[in-house]
């Protein structure tokens, strides 16, 4: 018997999912996260789940892991002390950054500037210069940099980043400095910008390399601890949704900053596929923030930027947009304008919403949901009981400040505003990219997602709204069901008139070979691999590129490949911006992505029932919807059968989540366990 294991580490809980590859049968374990060293909780959980399945660690073939170690290091500012080597004259590249100040015309008055990720006192300059054409203008002064690196050793730096001007054209000086650093700073990991991100734009390349170094020691320590138990079976989910072996991930940790959210999107793709849907908007609402993404034909859209907190790096990731709107978001009313604002301040887990009874006084989204009757008396399978009176008191403050007639009206306002904020994020990935959300299904997960999902379905018109089974452990499902992946990329700026089909084909093949050999080394044989190609194109002179897929077969030496790329670019440009230019097309970068086979995991099948869900009815309650109090049935999700239809208004509860079905809507239970919510009229 062989097993796969998915692991997702959240802020409070660690979820472990063990799947029997043959039967699809799964076992779950939930254990407290151990923030000081996440590997402790993970290994405890693995022990627990093995015991539940009456198996042992040895029978597990692969462990797939979405980790937030790298993300947390950045969010909490607890990464390594990074030294940085720049070209002489550019020591302040992170201090000056892009000179950008966020906000409106007076934004500079109130903007607190974050400190650079590599401190200026730990930044040294190399005497060297390479021109934009690769010419060596000034040779590297090796003695000088050696002395400076010794200085950094004395400063006690824990990681080194090397980022020189124009190294994306020629990385020779960076490689030489890395070699000297290996002698002078033994044991200190070195992030070389021409390897981490061989792309034009020095600030972006530098910050990405520094971020890589910043998280590297913590990630390496964590993965070492895990590997001691799991050795080669450990794979890490990267931000782009692909898997990498643990050593590969440890070498390039900046590629796993969004490992956690990517696991959620992968899980959503898997769960929705079981219910027959592949064009998706994913909606993951947690305590402090909400992540959304767009999936087309089962493939998440990949973006070229990764954002974590204040930090933006250039690294491929599932194009997840985050808004500071979650269950813990605090509602407030500025005295001057008397407008209702929700977030971005959050009560977090501590003190948390007023309802948690842990000393929180401020009204949060969760409190609004409690006031409206949408949440049962307890959460997380009984770990948190809810104090309704505390919620009412907190929300009453909002009603008073806005002059609203009732606490319920204020609570409904808070929910409407937070829904609108999340709708804004969904518009970013859909409408603003030229997609009509009505062509997609909406998959909701995360602790709070299913509660707000029906309302967001109504705002976006994305039907059905899919609530996967166990929405709280979807990330672990995503981890366990994803495939090996590697990508090789190169910046290659050429106008189309300076390019030939053959030249581009050779680059495709070279990049594909590089990625394929990595994936092969990680365990997926060549004949199981799929290769896809992507190029970034713009009109000559534009500053932004559009990624378009490339079919290598068209590169027949007759110019058909370039022609097809040009046409694909024009179609995208027209779709996004509604006009075309006569300017020449320009290639900017080329990528090859190689994936291993998607593991086969059999799905669960619920027993077939009738339309009537009465057997799962737990109780009834009063909810406030559409401006009035009304009775609603409360169902136990664990008892629902395939084919049951839950008519709104209704509340469906399970251990880690609560689903709200609005009046005029109904949730049909799919045999795979998902709830599919649709407007009743549409079904008629």
């Amino acid at each position, binding site marked *: 018997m062989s097993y796969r294991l998915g692991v997702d580490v959240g802020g409070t809980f660690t979820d472990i999912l063990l799947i029997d590859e043959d039967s699809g049968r799964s076992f779950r374990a939930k254990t407290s996260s151990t923030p000081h060293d996440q590997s402790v909780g993970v290994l405890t959980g693995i022990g627990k789940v093995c015991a539940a399945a009456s198996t042992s660690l040895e029978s597990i073939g692969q462990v797939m892991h979405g980790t937030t170690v790298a993300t947390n290091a950045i969010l909490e500012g607890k990464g390594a002390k990074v030294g940085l080597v720049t070209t002489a*004259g*550019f020591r*302040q590249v992170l*201090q*000056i*950054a*892009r*000179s*950008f*100040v*966020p*906000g*409106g*015309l*007076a*934004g*500079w*008055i*109130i*903007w*607190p*500037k974050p400190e650079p990720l590599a*401190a*200026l*006192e730990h930044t040294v300059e190399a005497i060297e210069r390479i021109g*934009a054409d690769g010419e060596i*203008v000034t040779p590297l002064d090796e003695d000088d940099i050696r002395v400076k690196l010794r200085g950094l050793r004395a400063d006690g730096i824990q990681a080194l980043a090397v980022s020189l*001007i*124009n190294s994306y054209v020629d990385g020779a000086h960076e490689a030489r400095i890395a070699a000297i650093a290996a002698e002078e700073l033994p044991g200190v990991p070195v992030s070389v910008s021409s390897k981490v991100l061989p792309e*034009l*734009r*020095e*600030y*972006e390349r530098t910050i990405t390399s520094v971020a890589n170094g910043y998280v590297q020691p913590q990630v390496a320590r964590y993965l070492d601890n895990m590997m001691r138990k799991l050795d080669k079976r450990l794979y890490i989910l990267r931000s782009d949704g692909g898997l990498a072996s643990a050593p590969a991930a440890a070498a390039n940790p900046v590629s796993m900053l969004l490992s956690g959210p990517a696991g959620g999107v992968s899980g959503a793709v898997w769960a929705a596929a079981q219910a027959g849907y592949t064009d998706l908007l994913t909606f993951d609402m947690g305590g402090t923030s909400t992540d959304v993404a767009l999936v087309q034909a089962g493939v998440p859209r990949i973006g070229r930027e990764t954002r974590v907190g204040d930090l933006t790096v250039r690294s491929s990731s599932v194009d997840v947009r985050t808004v500071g709107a979650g269950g813990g978001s605090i509602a407030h009313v*500025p005295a*001057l*304008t*008397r*407008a*209702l604002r929700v977030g971005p301040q959050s009560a977090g887990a501590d003190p948390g919403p007023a309802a948690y009874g842990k000393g929180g006084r401020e009204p949060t989204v969760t409190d609004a949901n409690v006031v409206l009757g949408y949440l049962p008396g307890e959460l997380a399978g009984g770990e948190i009981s809810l104090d309704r009176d505390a919620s009412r008191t907190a929300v009453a403050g909002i009603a008073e400040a806005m002059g*609203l007639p009732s606490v319920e009206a204020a609570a*409904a*306002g808070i929910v409407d*505003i937070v829904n*609108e*904020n999340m709708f*804004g994020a969904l*518009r970013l990935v859909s409408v*603003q990219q030229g997609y009509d959300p009505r062509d997609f299904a909406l998959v909701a997960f995360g602790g709070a997602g299913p509660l707000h999902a029906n309302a967001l379905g109504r705002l976006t018109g994305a039907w059905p709204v899919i609530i996967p089974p166990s929405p709280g452990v979807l990330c672990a499902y995503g981890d366990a069901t994803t495939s090996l992946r590697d990508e090789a990329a190169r910046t290659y700026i050429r106008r189309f008139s300076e390019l030939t089909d053959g030249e581009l084909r050779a680059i495709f093949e070279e990049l594909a070979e590089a990625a394929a050999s990595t994936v092969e080394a990680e365990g997926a044989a060549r004949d199981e691999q799929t290769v896809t190609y992507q190029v970034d194109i713009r*009109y000559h*002179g*534009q*500053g*932004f590129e559009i990624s378009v897929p490339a079919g290598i077969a068209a590169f027949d030496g007759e110019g058909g490949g370039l022609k097809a790329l040009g046409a694909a670019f024009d179609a995208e440009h027209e779709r*996004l*911006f*509604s*006009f075309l*230019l006569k*300017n020449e097309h320009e290639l900017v970068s080329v990528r090859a992505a190689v994936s291993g086979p998607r593991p086969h995991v059999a799905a669960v099948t619920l027993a077939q029932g009738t339309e009537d869900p009465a057997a799962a009815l737990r109780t009834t309650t009063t909810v406030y919807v559409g401006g009035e109090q009304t009775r609603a049935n409360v169902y136990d999700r664990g008892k629902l059968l395939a084919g049951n239809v839950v008519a709104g208004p209704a509340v469906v509860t399970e251990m880690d989540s609560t689903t709200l079905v609005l009046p005029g809507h109904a949730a049909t239970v799919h045999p795979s366990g998902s709830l599919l919510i649709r407007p009743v009229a549409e079904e008629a």
Partner: protein
Amino acid sequence: MAEIIQTTTARPQRVPVDPVTLDIIENALRNARYEMDEVLFRTALSPGIREQHDEFPLIGDPEGRMVVGQFGLSIPALLDRYEGTIEDGDVLLTSDPYSCDGAISHANDWLVVMPIYVEGRIVGWASMFGHMSDVGGKTVCSMPTDARTIFEEGVVIPPFKLYHRGQLNEDALRIVLNQVRQPDWNRADLNGIVAACRTAARRIQELCARFGADTYVSALDALLDRNYQAMKALLTTVFEDGETISFSDYICDDGVGFGPYKLTLSLTRTGEKVLLDFTGSSPQSPGPINYYLNENLARMFFGIYMITVADPQILWNDGFYPLIDVHIPEKSFWKPDFPAALNARNHGVGRIFDLFGGLLGQKNPDLLNAAGFSSSPHFMYSGTYEDGERAGEWFQLYSIGFGGIPGRPIGDGPDGHSLWPSFVNIPCEYLESYYPLRIERWETVPDTGGAGLHRGGNGVDVAYRFLQPGTIAIHDDRWLTYPWGVNGGEPGARGRKWIDRADGSREILPSKVHDVHVGKGDVLHFVTWGGGGWGDPLARDPELVALEVRRGLVSADGARRYGVVLREGAVDAAATGELRGSLRAGRPAKPPVFNMGPPLAEILANCEAETGLPTPRVPA
């Protein structure tokens, strides 16, 4: 006067809007405005817009009042002067500041205005302008520093229909683009601006479909009223009835030998209204620095400063404008007579920040920042490749520099940053791969930020080595008067520019100059100014000062301005105590609120010795 064609003449019904719907519409308008930026950035070709984001969007209500955005377009004034019809699908284009009351303030800015129709009637307006790198005329980038009339500043486009009922006027566009040096840039940027406005229109139409046009329009009224009520409350709490406060600052010179120009702004509250009065400012200049200031823009600046601190999430709009009277004297720096030259108005636009800061800070300590990097200094470089694989190809660069944000109530001013929203610098690697130059240094200059409890941000030294012969132009200021400090903070350092010629000689450049020939191997140092300091420098943590010395942001000598003495890089506590004591003893007990540096007469007397540049003549 424009004739507006609507197939439905019934005015929108005013209906009640619940407060939550109101906040939702406010949020949607904000998103639409940022989406306009995004569309333009991603499609523009000129470095000024695509890399630096020199553009401004606006969405208006049916009457043309701004409901979201950040510039002072008066659509009613524009329509008053426009002879013709306005129909669904029309798009107006203009670059004539004199035709729109200065909503745009020089001919490089191309302004697009389009009506938004729903079911045959106008529910709003979308508008945006962007700075075109070149609009023709006698100098590359169309900003001659010696211009005396607008006729020297390139093509000046009167308001006309670029699109009539959705149909592009190809001939007119062809005539306009024939005047400029990089027509493909202008065409792409203009396409982007129109696409951005159409995106905004689509979003507004979607909002009307979702909530109903009546609710949408009524919500705009409520949003305008929200600003009105908030401002009314603020005005009475901040300003005393009948009291006049006043502040003056300077533009150092006008490019044709005169300066400094005094800019004065006074404020008086009478009842619930406030008067902003620019009387006392210098008369108009014979050179190109005149800033034709739109009254609404003055109101908007005032409002943004006032409300940002109170509710940062509020949406800017014109609602409070009836509370603000603005008086700008005729034939002054702010309102020159046609056809005065206007191209170098960026100094005046920038100095508005300092002027409002110095004025309003007197009554609101949260707004009392020091003087900042109140400009957007321009650098242009152009020519024809002499040799290499691009031989014979024309190149043309327009870029904006950055400097020191001032010391602020909340903390230090960032080094080498932008006071303008959205603006970003052009990456060195981008410049080097598209232009024949190499950047040898891009660093902030230690000690250029004014000393203070909160230090002013440092100015930046960018050293450009030219790899092909060509000409350069510079538009900068604050080379003579100082970026002032406040509450005991010291002024920041002034800006400087010089060329180290390949033959070893050094040439000091004035702050406004064009057609300067540069040869292969010449190096230009473009050093911007620092921000002023905020608060008592002697109160700054000595360890922080020492850290900034290690960081190279303050020199060891510069640390003495904070009364900090270092020994081998570490704070010498005893010597620091002593130095601080003696500095305290030698200064007045209570510092003046503003420290403008030496008196103007002294600055002028020392001009040539300190700056290497001739003393400007007093403006006529």
